[in-house]
């Protein structure tokens, strides 16, 4: 928490200004009862109307002064709180953008999103409240006590007696309330979870006729939340009236003992009235401070989560300056081994292969065999543990990563589409692409037809997450995006899975034309996708167990034959 709040140091002068202004405002607030006492003792009791008017105008000036200080404090405190939020968000976002896949996957997408949004808002809110309300509490408390002592030290004893009582009650309520608050949060999460399961699994639930049981689960989650909420609210129902009672009884005490003090000639009637005001100010200050304590635990959790992101060390990769254009359209793996940091077993070991221009290389094998990892290494999402990868004839560690990636047309397994127009999404691959180039890419990707049928064609807006597109459509757009880049090497990471056989076949035929002098690497599950590749690489447990054309592998490779057998029936080979 403190580590996060350290980010406030940029605003130290603004925070100081808030301090000063809040101090001035508090002083003005505290000064009023004193002036009031003055009016009564020296004006009202004596009947001196000019004096009343004089002090009255001073009071007005003081209150105006206080209001200005408060407005100023609000100005600066909103600047600080919102500024801190902005800075934190920027810091986190920048940091996350620099994350490699490895760091990114440690948190997961959903978690990173909440950390960048909700958690920071939590902190921002805490600072806002802290600056605006809680800062004045200790000032009011100290100021109130000092002034009370100045007026009458003996009568202050009443306050000093009441305060611990109030604090003890506050502490008790917090001790009881805190675990309850946590429980409420847990029950809310539980209800959410069950509800979500019910929404996503509606078909399964209904097909198994489990509606009644699910109703019961929901009911239980609902009832548990209700019960615990009632408990919390009942506790709070106990708290507030009690606080008010303590405060009011303190005032009663002040009047009683104050009466004796006045009777003994130790203080004046106006002082007593000022005293009552002080009691209220002090007690309110305490209540205000207690508000802060409700927020702190929640914000502390958020702060910790933000800090986790910020303290995640980046696996900095040395980048070279060489230009990657020696042998265009080639990728070579030389005895490459890769293991995730801390992992016992390497994901890939002893991988050697080479891909040339105009060649299609397919990589096949089950999950966990390292296909996607192999591709990720070319994109330098990770660095190899041993061996060398040469891209366009250049060791990828000696060229800028940006340069390498610029020359790769990558189509991920899961099509990611951004909000914006269709054309913008395709141009994501190449900002400078002309309209013709965009359309050309779409045509090859078999996307032109469905785009043309859309309401505004290429200018059709795509919703966030591509909600208004089918899986196959998204995949085709994602392919067009890679095509428009005109790269030297294409990487298709199992990118045809959402396409039907026919579109798949058409697309691959069109691709062949387009990629004549490029290297194409296809990661695939379906044998039909790889049959006409120039080179098929069979991976098993991180090693290459076969290399060759479909025909060659069928004859010589047991693993490959098994894969084929599991997917295609013998009847076909017979016919």
């Amino acid at each position, binding site marked *: 928490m403190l580590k996060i709040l350290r980010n406030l140091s940029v605003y130290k002068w603004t925070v100081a200004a808030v301090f000063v202004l809040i101090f001035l405002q508090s002083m003005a607030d505290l000064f009023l009862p004193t002036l009031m006492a003055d009016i009564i003792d020296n004006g009202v009791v004596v009947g001196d109307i000019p004096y009343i008017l004089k002090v009255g105008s001073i009071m007005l000036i003081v209150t105006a002064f206080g*209001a200005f200080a408060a407005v100023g404090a609000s100005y600066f405190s909103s600047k600080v709180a919102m500024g801190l939020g902005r800075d934190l*968000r920027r810091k986190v976002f920048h940091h996350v953008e620099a994350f490699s896949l490895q760091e990114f996957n440690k948190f997961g997408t959903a978690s990173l*999103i909440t950390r960048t949004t909700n958690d920071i808002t939590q902190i921002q809110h805490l600072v806002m409240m802290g600056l605006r309300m809680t800062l004045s509490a200790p000032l009011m408390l100290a100021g109130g006590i000092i002034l009370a002592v100045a007026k009458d030290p003996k009568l202050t004893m009443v306050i000093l007696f009441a305060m611990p009582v109030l604090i003890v009650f506050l502490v008790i309520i917090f001790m009881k309330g805190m675990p309850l608050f946590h429980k409420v949060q847990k029950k809310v999460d539980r209800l959410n979870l069950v509800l979500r399961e019910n929404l996503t699994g509606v078909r399964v639930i209904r097909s198994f006729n489990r509606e009644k049981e699910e109703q019961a689960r929901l009911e239980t989650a609902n009832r548990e939340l209700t019960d615990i909420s009632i408990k919390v609210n009942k506790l709070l129902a106990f708290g507030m009236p009690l606080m008010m009672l303590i405060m009011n009884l303190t005032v009663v005490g002040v009047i009683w003992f104050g009466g004796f003090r006045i009777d003994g000639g130790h203080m004046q009637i106006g002082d007593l009235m000022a005293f009552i005001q002080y009691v209220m100010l002090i007690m309110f200050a305490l209540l205000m401070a207690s508000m802060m304590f409700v927020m702190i635990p929640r914000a502390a959790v958020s702060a910790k989560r933000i800090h986790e992101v910020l303290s995640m060390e980046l696996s900095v990769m040395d980048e070279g300056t060489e230009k990657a254009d020696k042998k265009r359209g080639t990728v070579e793996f030389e005895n490459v081994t890769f293991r995730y940091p801390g992992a016992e077993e390497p994901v890939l070991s002893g991988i050697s292969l080479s891909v040339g221009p105009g060649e299609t290389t397919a990589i096949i094998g089950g999950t966990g065999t390292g296909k996607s990892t192999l591709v990720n290494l070319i*994109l330098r999402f990770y660095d190899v543990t041993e061996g060398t990868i040469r891209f366009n004839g250049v060791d990828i560690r000696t060229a800028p990563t940006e340069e390498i990636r610029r020359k790769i047309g990558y189509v991920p397994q899961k099509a990611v589409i951004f909000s914006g127009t269709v054309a913008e999404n395709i141009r994501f691959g190449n900002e400078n692409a002309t309209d013709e180039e965009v359309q050309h890419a779409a045509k090859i990707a078999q996307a032109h037809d469905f785009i043309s049928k859309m309401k505004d064609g290429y200018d059709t807006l795509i919703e966030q997450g591509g909600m208004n597109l089918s899986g196959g459509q998204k995949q085709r757009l994602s392919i067009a995006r890679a095509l428009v880049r005109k790269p030297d090497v294409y990487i298709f990471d199992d990118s045809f*899975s959402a396409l039907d056989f026919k579109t798949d076949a058409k697309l691959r035929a069109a691709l062949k034309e387009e990629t004549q002098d490029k290297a194409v690497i296809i990661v695939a599950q379906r044998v039909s996708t790889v049959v006409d590749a120039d080179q098929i690489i069979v991976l098993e447990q991180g090693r290459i167990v076969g290399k060759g054309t479909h025909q060659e592998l069928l004859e010589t490779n047991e693993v490959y034959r098994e894969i084929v057998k599991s997917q295609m029936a013998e009847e076909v080979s017979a016919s």
Partner: protein
Amino acid sequence: MRDEQQENRRELSHSSARGHRPFHHSGRRFRGGPGGHGAHLIAGEKPKDFKGTLKRLLRYLRPRKVQLIITFFAAVFSTVFSIIGPKVMGMAITEIFEGIYESYRGLPGGGVDFSAVGQILIWLAGLYIFSSIFSFVQQFVMAGVAQKTVYDLREDVNKKLEKLPLKYFDSHAHGDTLSRVTNDIDLIGTTLQQSITQFITAFVTITGIVIMMLVISPVLTLIAILTLPVSMYVIRPILKRSQKYFADQQRTLGKLNGHIEEMYTGHKVVKAFGHEKKAIAEFNEVNEELYEAGRKAQFISGIIMPVMVFIGNLGYVLIAVAGGIFVTKRMITIGDIQAFITYTKQFSHPVSQTANIANIIQATIAAAERVFELLDEEEEVKESKGATLERAKGAVSFRHVDFGYGDGLLIKDMNIEVEPGQTVAIVGPTGAGKTTLINLLMRFYELKGGAIFIDGVDTRQIPRSELRRNFGMVLQDTWLFNGTIRENIAYGKKDATDEEIYRAARLACADHFIRTLPDGYDTVLNEDASNISQGQKQLLTIARAILADPPMMILDEATSSVDTRTEAAIQKGMARLMKGRTSFVIAHRLSTIIDADLILVMNDGAIIEQGTHRELLDKNGFYAELYYSQFTGKNVG
């Protein structure tokens, strides 16, 4: 695929639904406390039908009429007692003052009459104690009322979910539905808990204070009341502007969160295409925008309090001056001045509260409206119980079936006959096709024309639960819930014995992997079931279907991101499952297709051809083209 994306979208929209409204939450949390008023505003959401929704919401309070009446009176008593407080306190002070004044003038019998003061103070203490007790009673009772009302509302929604047709779930983002059940109902609860009693208290306080003030001094009251229109006049433009800024803030926050979501979701693509800089630039721009909007909104809302306080103090000074003059002229007692001042201080608080309450109530009614909207969604067509279907043999026939999701028809006059135990292969693009078939067979959607018969019985004559009991589903998009593996498998059969569960798992080739898990069958699947692989999940759904043992099956052969060994296991499991059952298979393997008794060729969700492999090849249509483009010319082996 589509479902999976919806899933993601739901995930995101859920997190953003929470993210977009943080100020609502935190604002509400502190509304109850002293000083926590005025500064928090709920951006104006206007309900469409205020009166109707309010009436309907009040209906939920009806069963708790007695408690509400208790709350009302407790609130009134508590407020009345606390209002009388300052007046009595003033009496004590006057008593002291008079005593001092007399001795000051040297009158005999001067000095404070402590027995009189004591008496008054005991009265005062009593008043405060009663006020606190009533306040406690009011909040205590209200806690039950509010939470139980919220419980009822949620329970109604839960019950409603059961009755909604699949159409609802398919056409509404899960995040939206979730947000209605959580955020909106939550807001209603908080309003009931806090704002209603606040409203009562504020109302009683204002009238009570005005009466007490009038009793003390009509002239002073006039001065005090005069500050009211002044403060209204000053505050209103500030309030308006503040609402605008808050709306701005909310909007930019939504924009920023959207950007963050997109960039994080597409992290890999952003990196691969070297878009980090652009992403950051856009982020910085929106972030800056948010800072400006947020700063303004917070500043403006921070102004309201000091301005109110200033106007309050202005009244305070005026009253002190005027009161001072009155006291010297013996028109008013010193204690009454003290009381009056306390009243003016208490006055501004409920006034600013009521100003805010209007906004809160509006937002609450808008929230209630969204909940009622959900409750008013059209329900599934009532089922008839004309026929029973204990255990079907598995003869399925479609006769003149017309179907479409919207106005158009996807399926027109479709006729198929499937004998018990036969296999129907569905071929064509993935997506809408398979879902449509499931929707029709299981009667998740209603037909537009024609009828589907099972064992010769029109499915509309059979209760839905009985119909569905006769079907099993194994889909690529698995659904497992947060519970143990044992519970998940047993989901298909309510009182399955352990032995039955193990047997089903063995048949589904899942037993082995389950036993390699640390807790075996008692391993708890976490919230998104990410502690087992996709393929393993599929095996579990197969085991679940085997245990349920339905006479008819709907299967999806697609096995993406599954390793070869698991894939072989899945296929073995599926083969066992299909044996002796009428099966509808979303086919991906050629052997399944060629062996099928009937092939349905689907495209864009419509069934465009049907027949056996031979028949379809002879027809030389879509299927033939698909078949030749795909499987021939590449002689396998």
